[in-house]
């Protein structure tokens, strides 16, 4: 008998309309426990809007979001305490030190043993030398690392990573990817990941969802997608989809 994986995230018929613009158009997908799913698509495809709807920063026009089997609208606080995120457009307070920022977010996520948790994250993400430096004094790559550490303050069951390695050098990015995967898999969680780094996406993803103009145009494993589109790598798929959608009238 196979292992039944719990569905961690289920998005059904999700739509976000801004006046005449449909940012996300009737998308549905699910992520199971232990799965790492990537959202790919050109700029303006609806990736960030989708993530922001999952974080309750944007309200959907239609559709339903279920996380850990519960409706997000009715259980916002409970569900957000079991999720976390990082994104380059949302930096941590520049005027706090790394340690203070992590402590603040441990408190905001209701972590009772916040001292131990902050020490663990400082060790795990190798932040010791910058622990007492202000976030604003760190380079953008270092700030990103602190942002990723912050995303683990509450040992999240669902992690939303919007271009998490955008400002990192390849060596640090690789190291952090490995840490992220280890921590999430140990916790039995799942990740929804967006990036423009196709190699990274190919390495980490169990499944890839291609978005274009707010719609899902493909949802499969990296190998199946390559076969389906007849391309040798994800970058080629990305470019061909982008070319096709640009040529098509909206």
């Amino acid at each position: 008998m196979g292992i039944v994986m719990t569905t961690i995230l289920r998005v059904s018929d999700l739509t976000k309309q801004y006046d005449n613009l449909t940012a996300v158009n009737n998308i549905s997908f699910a992520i199971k426990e232990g799965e790492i799913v990537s959202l790919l698509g050109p700029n303006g495809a609806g990736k960030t809007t989708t993530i922001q709807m999952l974080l309750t920063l944007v309200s959907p026009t239609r559709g339903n979001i279920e996380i850990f089997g519960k409706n997000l609208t009715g259980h916002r606080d409970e569900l957000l305490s079991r999720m976390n995120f990082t994104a380059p457009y949302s930096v941590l307070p520049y005027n706090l030190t790394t340690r203070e920022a992590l402590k603040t977010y441990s408190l905001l996520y209701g972590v009772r043993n916040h001292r131990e948790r902050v020490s663990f994250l400082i060790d795990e993400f190798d932040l010791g030398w910058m622990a007492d430096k202000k976030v604003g004094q760190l380079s953008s790559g270092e700030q990103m690392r602190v942002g990723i550490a912050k995303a683990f303050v509450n040992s999240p069951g669902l992690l939303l990573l919007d271009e998490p390695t955008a400002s990192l050098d390849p060596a640090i990015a690789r190291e952090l990817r490995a840490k992220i995967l280890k921590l999430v898999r140990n916790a039995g969680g799942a990740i929804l990941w967006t990036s423009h780094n196709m190699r990274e996406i190919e390495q980490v993803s169990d499944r890839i969802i291609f978005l274009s103009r707010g719609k899902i145009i493909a949802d499969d494993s990296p190998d199946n997608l390559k076969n389906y589109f007849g391309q040798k790598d994800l970058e080629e798929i990305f470019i061909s989809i982008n070319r096709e959608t640009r040529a098509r009238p909206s």
Partner: protein
Amino acid sequence: MNLLHVFGIFYRNVILIRRSVPKLFALFGFITVELFLWGFITLWVQTIGPSDARLDFVLLILSAFIFWSMFELSQRSFSISFLEEVWSRNVINIFASPIKLGELVMGFALVGVAQTLLAFLYITPIAFLLYALQIWDMGLYIIPFFMNVLISGWGIGVVAIGLVVRFGPSADIMAFFIPFLLLPFSAVYYPVSVFPPLLQDITFILPTRHIFEGMRTAITEGLIPYDSIMWATALNIIFVILGFLFLHWMLRLARTKGYLSRLVQD
């Protein structure tokens, strides 16, 4: 209500204030300079008034000044606690965390109470040393007045935050303008009777008017201004509830229209 969430907001702001010289100056500097200004004006008015004047200008004007400063400080520290998140592009992290709106507001209010109390405990001995102002002569009346200026500050602070959520970071000026707008109509330094009759009726809805009118009654007539305290408290409760509902509405609108992202972009 999760107290860890409230403490998280308090902790973040206390750290900022504790080690920032400009923030410490904003807390203690303005009020000290203004105390000198109002103190000297008051001394001068005292000397040019009739020698048999019954009014104690020092107590009257400087008490009003100190309580108005406490109102401004309560409102300003409340609003700035939120603006700090906007200025540091951290606001998305806050709204994507499990903190409830009520907990966020409670955290800001707590920061306001701490700062206002500190400033009050700092300025009253200075006012006593420089101008022999014995504000504590008001006795226990001081407590309801102090509580009411705090709550009035929160009411305005909540509205100011709502405006920033709706109109973006450039609306932060409202956090500083609204108290200034209220000053002439709150009868801080003069009695309500100087207003034209229509303005007397209109300003009745301002809790600050009742606070300062009540304080004057307590100082000049030595009576307990039960009516003023009751009206100020009742109106404050109504204003805070309406302010909170306004913020809730603005936040819902911001989530529908996607304004929250704008708070880290503008």
